Structure formats: C-alpha cells, structure tokens
C-alpha cells in the first residue's frame, strides 16, 4: 500500500484503505497471518489428533497421546480454516474493502456446506454420488471418505461463524492501522 491511499478521498463508492504497510505490503502480511493460522490447524491434526488426516505425511504424524490445544483443538481447524481463507481472499482481492463482509459471508457459507455435507443423513449419499474417477487423484480421492466418515457438529458451525467474524474484525483492525 502506498502512502497516497492514506489520504485518498472517498470516491466512486470505494472507501480508502488505511492498512499500514511497514516493511511488507498488507497483502503479504495477510498471507503470513493466514499461513500462521493454517499451520495451527495442521498442528492440531498432526499432534492433537495423532495424524488422523489424509493430507498429513507419515513423518508429521504423532501417536496422538499429546494434546496441545485440549478441548479447543476439537473446533480449532474449522475456525482457523475459515479465518485463514478469508484473509487470503481479502489479500488477493484487495483493495475492495467494501467486499469484506461479502467475502466473510461467502466463506462462511462454503465452509458450512461442507460441514452439513457430513451430516449422517447426507454424508453417505454424497460419498456415493462422487464419481469413481476421483480415485487416485491426490487430495481429491479423499472426498468420499470426508463425507462418509466425517461427523456433523453444530459446534463446528459455530466455530466457522466465529472464524468468519474474527476474520472480519481482524481485517477491519488492519485497515484502521492496528496491525498486530
């Protein structure tokens, strides 16, 4: 962000963006923050959940006997995933700050769709409907098992919502110059 933006008038319906730049641009900071949050999510799966996730390589998995995050670790992945991808999206689409609420809402909806897809009434049906050609495609092949063996939980929906709200507040704070 260059200095001109700090004094830019409101025009064309676009609000001025006042993110402080520092050494790195705000986009980079948003990416770093997102990476940090995603790393927290990976640690939850690798340590608290003993590596019980498809995306984790063997060497990163533990035996699950250590719990870093305790009970919070149950909801942390959905929270940080929502939060991180909102930050990434804001960084990519910057500078359109008026879109931040819409971005938060969109990610909230997408994350909720996947969570609801794990509901026992839907999960197996969705898994059955996924075409067989996904087998063998890295990451994508995990889709049926995600829906068939996942567990829908209202608390996950809540943590997604908290992630979206936190992301919104964080972005607003950044715009106001309160970069952490």
């Amino acid at each position, binding site marked *: 962000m260059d200095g001109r933006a700090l004094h830019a008038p409101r025009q064309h319906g676009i609000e001025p963006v006042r993110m402080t730049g520092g050494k790195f641009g705000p986009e980079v900071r948003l990416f770093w923050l997102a990476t940090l949050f995603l790393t927290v999510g990976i640690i939850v799966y690798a340590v608290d959940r003993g590596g019980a996730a498809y995306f984790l390589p063997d060497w990163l998995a533990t035996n699950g006997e250590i719990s870093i995050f305790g009970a919070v670790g149950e909801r942390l992945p959905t929270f940080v995933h929502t939060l991180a991808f909102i930050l990434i999206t804001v960084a990519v*689409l910057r500078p359109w700050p008026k879109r931040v609420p819409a971005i938060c809402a969109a990610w909230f909806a997408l994350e909720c769709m996947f969570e609801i897809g794990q509901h026992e009434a839907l999960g197996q049906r969705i898994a059955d409907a996924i075409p067989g050609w996904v087998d063998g495609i890295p990451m994508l092949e995990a889709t049926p098992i995600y829906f068939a*063996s996942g567990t829908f939980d209202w608390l996950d929906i809540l943590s997604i919502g908290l992630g979206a709200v936190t992301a919104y507040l964080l972005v607003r704070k950044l715009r106001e110059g309160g970069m952490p």
Partner: protein
Amino acid sequence: MTHTSNKAFGWRMLLMIPVAVMAVLSIVATGHDDSDNGELPDPPEIPATILPSYNYEIGSQVGDLTLNASVSGIGSIDVAFGDTLRGSINLDVSGAGEVTLLNYVTDAGSTLAVTLESIALPEIDGTYTINVTEALSSTIFDPPTSGAFEVVSSLGPSVSVSITGTGVSVTIPGNPVPFEYTWDEFMDLVDSEDPIQPELRAAALATGILEFVYEFFLNAADVLDELEVIVATSPVVEECDMFMGSPPEGALAQGEAVVTYLGTGDLFPGDSFEWNFTDCWFEDFDELRNGFFQLSNYIEEVDADNNLTRIGFAPSGGTNGGISFFGYRIEETVELTLGVYQIDPLNVVVVNGGFSVLFTAP
C-alpha cells in the same frame, strides 16, 4: 486509494480460482486416515441390513458329533440331530441395529434323536426320536403355544404330544383318554417319583432335551448382534449373582462369566468366541454354572444389496463349527435354610459336544 481498473479486478478474481480449489481440497483432505500409513483409508463399513425374519437350522457338527449330557439323577443322554431342526424366527430390529428375538416356529418334519443310558431309570433306556408333526410356535424362551410332535421310542408305541392352550395333551396308544399337563408338570414327569408309564416319562425326557437345545440355540441367536461389541471389548467380564449368605461348599460367593473373542482384529468369518463360567450363579434359575462353551467358525454372508443373508456358527469347508460344550456343568442350587445353599446332587448336568446354528434369509 490507488485506482484499480476492472481489468485488474478480473485478474484477481481469476486468482481466486486456485485459492478456492486449495480451500476445498484442504477441507476434504482432513478425512480421517485410520490406517496410519498415509494411504486413503478404507471406506467405513456399513452395517449389513438385518432382515425381520430368518430361516434357521440346528444341525450336527462335523463328523456327526453329538451333544452329550450327563445328568446325575438320570444317566447319560446323547442327542443326534438327524434331519435337523428347521424353522423360522422373527426379529425386531431397531434403527440402531439392535435385535430383539420375538418368536419362532419349528417346522413340521424336524427331527431330533435322543439315546438314553440310564442308571436311575433303566426302564426308559433306549432311543427316542422326536418328529415334529405340526409346526411348533413359541415365543422366545417360553414353551410352545401351538403345534404337535410325536416321540417314537424303542419302548413301544409312539407318544403324541399336542400343544394346548394350557400346556400339553399327551396321547399314548391304548389309553382311551389323553393325559393333560401344564408344560412344567410335563417336564417334571422326568424325575417324578409317582408310578408313570415309561413311554410318558421318556416323552417328557425327550421334550426336555428339545427345550435344552432350544435354550442354547436362542442364547446363541441373541448374542449374534453383540459380536462386534465383544470383539471390540474382549475379554468381557461379567459378575454373576452373589450368594448373600453361605454359598454351596467349594463355590465362590460371587463368580464370573468371561466372554473372550478368540480371533484377532476385526470380526471375520471363521472366528470363534468362548464363554467361560466360574461359579456363575443365576439366582432366578437356581443354577450354578461352571466350565465353558465355544461358538466357533462364525459364518456371515451379505448380498449385493447389503442384506445379511446368512449368519451363525456352523461347519464350513471341512472346518468344524457351532456351539461346542467342554465339560459345561449346570448344577441346581437348593436353599437349605435362609441364605444357606447347597448343590442338589441329583440335578447336576455336564454337557459335552455340541451342534450347529445357522440362520439364512428366507
């Protein structure tokens, strides 16, 4: 504010495509991997659908092994499953897959042969064959409510037993009037001290054996929906009823029953289980049980529609299977005075051998 053109916005929106893909993939890639080897786990096993009714067979084990019961007050009884006992059983299956046995029918044509070598009752020594002549209907663990069978013996004329609303009506050729009994009265004829026609006593004994076989058949059926739980929690130790006063000499005040899965890993066809009893007292039945029996060579077949079509314990491919008893001892307890128990020496049954149990979809 820097001016950003719509063109730039378009490019940034394009950048969102890989972001969205990455987000979606990172969501689905959190699927559990229980195999712990980085490979995609097997899809979760969907429990097979249990049908509301099954046909059943109670038959011999490999080599026509018989069921033998040594009854202290009577003698030695061998049971051979001739043409097998066949019928159907109705179940109530809850949404959670919990099975409750409702009632069953023993088909006409079913047979069971009993050979008795008696010390106490030499007059009824011989071989008896129970032929079910009219389908027997029963609710679970209760005497039959309708049907008829005959007991063909080497002693003389066949005895016909019809189930009535109140018990049984027993007809012996030559007797102008049938004998009417409640079910319990009929069973008590076995060791009755009253003078009774040998055919009548023998018929009661053979019927008692039939009841004994069905008790274990139903117990085996009742446990089939719990096998997965036993596999997951084996060994399962259950405390038996406690003698609150003085137990029979040599018996523990409170014994236990231990159910052990004899396989490894998940439940598979061919697996076996063991029930081991140590001074296990069933207060309601006044029975003290010791010894063990096994349910061996588990059979399970599921069709293409995921319906459970075959389940039980029976021989297959030359491998023996079924319910097998190994010195399984059932002793009747008697309360001498308040809280003081002893074993009735005339009511001790030791069971060896066994039979097979198999359920098939109609």
